[in-house]
């Protein structure tokens, strides 16, 4: 299971793990995404920011294999690709952690951790899950990420939102993902919990993963991001390196920029 790591070949430093260029997506006549470009490098965090309906979730679905793009190119380590399923994305090293549906709440933590990639022992009709290894590995992998669970048998739904996100991130790291796609990991969380999750995001980055962080919180993005892609109504409103962009400017852009100024005029008494 864990052998699916990137010990393959030393990659040239500048070859991105994932590269989208000019990607578009249509739902019937409706343009959901138009001409989006994005690169993800190992050990770097690319933040995708945008308001509701800006196309963030469509973008994530293309990268994670749930939908296919209609135009443009999608390269994984330089090779042009069209992903058919989430399983295929996982096999190519792209793991996605969704905001609400990262885990199955009623299932124990250890069953969730290995869901879809359960190690087995035995043969034929006696082929069974290696429950001991699964329990032990879950505990130690979570501990490695700094999550100390008393009991891996408790239903994962009894953990807090931030802990559940963290377990999902730890799972992706354990299974050797090269690219980690995070869909609004801090959206439903309080300040402290958000901080916890962002630390795990940074830990994943330090472990050499390329991270795509989808968010509408410019403060969280600016804390950890190396690169920022701004979406607006399905198109790219800008793409910046961290050095090019101050937090104030990012906040202003995200808050609606000139639209907000107009609004403040309207609301003035």
């Amino acid at each position, binding site marked *: 299971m*864990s*052998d699916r*790591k990137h*010990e393959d070949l030393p990659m040239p430093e500048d070859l991105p793990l994932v590269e989208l260029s000019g990607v578009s997506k249509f739902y019937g006549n409706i343009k959901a995404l138009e001409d989006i470009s994005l690169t993800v490098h190992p050990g770097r965090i690319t933040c995708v920011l945008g308001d509701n309906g800006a196309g963030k979730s469509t973008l994530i679905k293309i990268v*994670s294999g*749930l939908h296919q793009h209609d135009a443009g190119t999608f390269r994984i380590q330089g090779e042009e690709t069209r992903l058919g*399923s*989430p*399983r295929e994305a*996982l096999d190519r090293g792209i793991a996605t952690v*969704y905001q609400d*549906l*990262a*885990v*199955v*709440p*009623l*299932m124990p933590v250890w*069953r969730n951790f*290995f*869901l*879809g*990639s*359960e*190690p*087995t022992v035995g043969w034929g009709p006696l082929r*069974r*899950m290696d*429950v001991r*290894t699964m*329990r*032990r*590995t879950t*505990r*130690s*992998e979570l*501990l*490695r*990420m*700094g*999550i*100390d*669970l*008393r*009991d891996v*048998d*408790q*239903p994962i739904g009894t*953990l807090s939102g*931030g*802990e559940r996100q963290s377990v999902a991130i730890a799972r992706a790291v354990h299974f050797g993902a090269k690219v980690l796609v995070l869909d609004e990991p801090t959206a439903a969380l309080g300040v402290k919990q958000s*901080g*916890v999750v962002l*630390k795990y995001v*940074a*830990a*994943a980055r*330090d*472990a*050499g993963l390329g991270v795509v962080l989808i968010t509408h919180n410019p403060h969280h993005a600016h804390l950890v991001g190396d690169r920022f892609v701004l979406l607006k109504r399905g198109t790219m409103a800008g793409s910046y390196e961290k050095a090019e962009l101050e937090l104030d400017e990012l906040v202003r852009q995200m808050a609606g920029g000139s639209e907000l100024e107009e609004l403040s005029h309207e609301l003035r008494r």
Partner: protein
Amino acid sequence: MTVTTGPGNTGGTEEGSGARQPGGPSGTAPAPSAGSEAERPAHRPLPVRLLRRPELGAVVGAVALFVFFSLIADSFLRTSSLSTVLYFSSTIGIMAVPVALLMIGGEFDLSTGVMVTSSALVSSMFSYQMTANTWVGVGVSLLVTLAIGFFNGFMLTRTKLPSFIITLATFLMLTGLNLGLTKLISGTVATKSISDMEGFDSARAVFASSVTIGGAHLQITVLWWLLLVAVATWILLRTRAGNWIFAVGGGVDAARAVGVPVARTKIGLYLGVAFAAWISGQHLLFNYDTVQSSEGVGNELIYIAAAVIGGCLLTGGYGSAIGAAVGALIFGMANKGIVYAQWNPDWFKFFLGAMLLLATLLNAWIRKRAEATR
């Protein structure tokens, strides 16, 4: 439980990259944390673990019912009475177990009751009309019944309609087919007796025989029942497929996102139900030689009720095969216990309804307790 953050985070860098060595995580993982692991019990104390079992409510109910009927009905504890109870329970239990698995997988099947009858009819009429060995009819019946199960699962995963609608349609269609085809082929509403046909005796030995152990008649359906419970429990708790069943019932989108084959799992569950319907159908046929084509209507709800009494959640993702078996046992004890207590059996259904309500409330209460004591 606590989340430790702080200084460990920068250290996590090296550890994290260490984890990416081939074979690293599974082989050497416990080493750095061995100290802290030893201080803490690996498992929760026994009472807490028991409280977490989905079948606990059903077991408590079954024991209570057993004691109750032992006290008020003198003949209840006789071996002959108990073997009758076990036999009746097994005819429900054979179906309740795969129905429970299906419900854990988040789906319903309303066609199970008539599917059993269809299976028996196909077997009987094929053998009779083709004057073939009864085993040929049994084999054809298996294929047809599995095809019905596959149809349910395939339609469900393709159309994405609720399983309630799909299997309600199958239920109605099968009810009509059972009656219509039987009349068309046999001329009456029942099939002709096949008891003088070749292979009948050996097929009866497999599906409808009984052994006598110490004065008690043990029907072979009880063995089928126990076998199904054992296999279903093994699948559910120890195989990858079991993990997927819990996952597709408890969070289908999350399951799909991590690569669980959702459609295959659900179709497999419907095939399991069909297989059990085939066993039940063959028992029906070889126990009585003929089959009434209108039989089975309403039984689907009994199977679902047994699964629910056994701790299965209607919304999926939670339950057990053992619980469903105990649920069937409760049905058997109530049904026969009323007779042994010499009550008017007209009250049986009322009794069952009240018990279903009680069991569901008890299960909900236990689950809440179990989550509070973590």
